[in-house]
């Protein structure tokens, strides 16, 4: 008797079973998350290869290490940056420069990992990337909260597959994927109907999760996220301001995604590994990013998202002050340039300094964990917050970093 009534309840619950599963999941999250967090967003402009600080935000004109790079004044009296970034110079009051960040990792993969997770790479203990943590800390949605543009992105580790980056390597492909799914909508509904019998007869977390994922895919098709992905739908004026370059399109897509509710967008820009012909290459790379980055800052401000959206510019490490035989600069993690603003962070601040040659950090040395602690604090997450991994270990959000007080 009792068995059959339980069974009826379960059968009657139908979708309710899945719903209550999602609800439980959600409550868990609410319990862990700080309510002030819910509005915060972040966009990382990832300069893949390792950008030269000397040709961007810490120029040394006249020094033996300075090369031909010149400096220009910015909107903030006393702050000068390289002449390669005139549009960003005009908006320096919104951004702060960290000139004294130092990292131990001079290898591309290890540097990328450290600057994405805040932890050194230990193969046996994978750490989630910042985007996965932000996704995990945000209220659940029917669309991905973490999107990675132009790169596959690093994994979610113990945050689980729901917080993996949605990778848009090519926006056209993403649009094709959505179009294909739209054609399958009736198929998806019939699939759901067919699955119902099997799903009711079995009691299994993996089964419930898969069912929830299938339903989420169907619901996703009607969210603003899907229309935001189609960057070709952007207005002519928008496209002009961001330019026709690839990075411009990616920044425009990032803005559209942030407006649609995505919490974390990483935009990749490659080519910064300038071992050869550094000065010409960095000048070109800066030209590619200067206008789109400025347009993104302007749009976030105009759209009212600026105070909720942290914008970070960085790469895996900086480059040697010494100029090599090929007019290039090599890997120099000792000084890793970072520029950030928005989301309540102070603008117009310079953290730390390097000496006249750029070889040594002169003041306020900052570590990668300090940077991550600053970002977590800006998000409203305690840097010492302890996550419990699915394999039972306790993992602090930040690797024992303390926030950089002058930025908060």
């Amino acid at each position, binding site marked *: 008797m009792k*068995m059959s009534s*339980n*069974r009826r309840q*379960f059968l009657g619950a139908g979708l309710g079973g899945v719903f209550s599963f999602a609800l439980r999941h959600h409550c868990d999250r609410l319990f862990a998350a700080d309510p002030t967090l819910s509005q915060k967003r972040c966009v990382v402009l990832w300069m893949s290869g390792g950008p030269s600080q000397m040709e961007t935000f810490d120029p040394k004109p006249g020094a033996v290490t300075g090369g031909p790079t010149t400096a220009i004044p910015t909107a903030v009296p006393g702050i000068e940056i390289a002449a390669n970034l005139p549009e960003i110079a005009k908006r320096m009051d919104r951004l702060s420069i960290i000139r004294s960040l130092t990292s131990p990792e001079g290898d591309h993969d290890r540097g990328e990992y450290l600057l994405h997770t805040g932890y*050194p*790479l*230990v*193969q*046996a*203990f*994978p750490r989630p990337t910042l985007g996965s943590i932000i996704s995990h800390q945000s209220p659940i949605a029917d669309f*991905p909260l973490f999107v990675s543009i132009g790169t*596959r*992105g*690093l*994994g*979610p*580790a*113990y945050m*689980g*597959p*729901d917080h*993996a*980056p*949605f*990778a848009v390597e090519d926006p056209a492909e993403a649009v094709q*994927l959505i179009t*294909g*799914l739209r054609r*399958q909508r009736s*198929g*998806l509904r*019939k*699939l759901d*109907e*067919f*699955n119902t019998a*099997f*799903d*009711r*007869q*079995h*009691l*299994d*977390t*993996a*089964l419930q*999760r*898969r*069912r929830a*994922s*299938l339903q*989420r*895919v169907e619901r*996703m098709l009607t969210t603003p996220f899907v229309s935001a992905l189609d960057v070709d739908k952007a207005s002519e004026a928008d496209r002009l301001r961001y330019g026709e370059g690839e990075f411009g399109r990616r920044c425009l897509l990032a803005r559209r995604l942030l407006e649609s509710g995505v919490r974390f967008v990483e935009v990749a820009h490659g080519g910064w590994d300038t071992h050869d012909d550094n000065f010409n290459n960095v000048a070109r790379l800066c030209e590619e990013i200067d206008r789109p980055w400025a347009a993104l800052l302007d749009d976030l401000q105009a759209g009212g998202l600026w105070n909720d959206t942290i914008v970070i510019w960085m790469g895996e490490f900086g480059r040697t002050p010494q100029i090599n035989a090929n007019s290039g600069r090599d890997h120099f993690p000792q000084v890793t340039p970072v520029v950030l603003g928005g989301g309540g962070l102070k603008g117009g601040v310079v953290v730390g300094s390097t000496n006249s040659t750029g070889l040594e950090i002169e003041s306020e040395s900052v570590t990668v964990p300090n940077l991550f602690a600053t970002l977590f604090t800006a998000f409203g997450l305690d840097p010492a917050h302890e996550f419990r*991994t699915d*394999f*039972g*270990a*306790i993992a602090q959000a930040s690797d024992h970093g303390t926030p950089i007080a002058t930025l908060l």
Partner: protein
Amino acid sequence: MSQSFNASRVLKTLALLAVTLVASASSLAQDHSATSIDQILRKAWSTAGLESAPLVPDEQFLRRVTLDLVGRIPTPAERASFLASPDRDALVERLLASDEFAPFWADHWTTQLYGYQGDDSDERGLLAEWLTSQIGSNRPYDQIATELLTAKGESAFSGPVNFLLRYPDEPVVKVSRAFLGVRLDCARCHDHPFDRWTKDDFAGMNRFFDGLERQDVSAGNTRLVDVVREVSPEERPRFLTGAEPQTSQWRSEFSLFLTRSRPFARNFANRLWYHLLGRGIVHPVDDVNRDNPAAIPELLDWLADEARQKDFDLRHMIRLICRSQAYQMQSMATQGDEQRLKLFAVRSLKPLTPEQWYASMCLATGRESTADERIEFVLTFFGDALNADFSSSWEYRETVQGLMSRLVDPVTLPSRDTDELFVRFLGRSTTPDERALCSGRSPQDIGFMLLHSSEFAFNH
């Protein structure tokens, strides 16, 4: 002088260990052989007042065991032939002897030991190839483990050396999870919150690998060698049992301590049970700790003893488990059946791994399987989020993006007949209800529905 002294100490230790092992083995041999998996389980069910599920029909058994042992669904021809003479034990023997057995298990173990990389690397391939040959010749599992832990040589030439090369920092974290089911991860920063392992235990275990040195030989080729380290007594390695090395060959001694230990045998048994039953006796399998006891300790010990007595014979263990009632049970369960699932009175479900899914999809649709497409498929399945730990095979890890890209992948159709499609995809005949559901729908729609159904996506 000192070397021969050390060597004799080791021999003595070994002799002692051997005596202890033989003694313990003979003392339990009598009641060990007199009992069986099913007897232990029946006792556990009756104590807990649980009813066991009935056995699965032949066609479902065929699908289940084919997926488990060779990593794909059965073909319609295999189904027809098995249904004509449904001898389950003979089927298990056929699969164990099949050419597909070793590559499937090797691939599976490679994922557990090595994980994936952005692209399927040569190093991973070499490790998988080596494991295939070991499993092919049915090499005892303790010997396989020993070789993985003591391998020397160059990554471009040696399969087993690539296991430790994969974990340059704190290899003991992976080693203790893979071979003991113990998570020292927590103890690396502070004393384990719910177990007896301390930071000192972690440090002591990790020091066994302090002598490891990686030398870059050429681009993409790394050599793993041991250098002898002179250390003060308090800086010597120490096994979890308290044992310390007597020679300078720390890794060799570590592998001895490890493979002769009871937790090693338990871990081997528990992981096999997990692979086949979908749920560990200690569950999760890599979380052996005081607060997570075995659901049925007698069963775990019995299997561990069996493994030790039969020299860690993988095929023997699989044969035993697949013949048991627990393996052959139905998987239907509803809310309230949690305890039955936990004590194996009803079967657990397992999502197909990406490799199983891809192989099965190719078989069902008649699509040609290629190595490149297979790798690309596996990578997309996880949405490129590959830096996770793959200790738990039956966890659902698919990302929404992975699922989406599969849903838009065109389904090629081997047939336009509904009944035939059901047999090809699900390995069973169509029910009247389903025939009604399918009537008036295009074969294309039916193929889409079957390929993405829960019934296809799970081993049940």
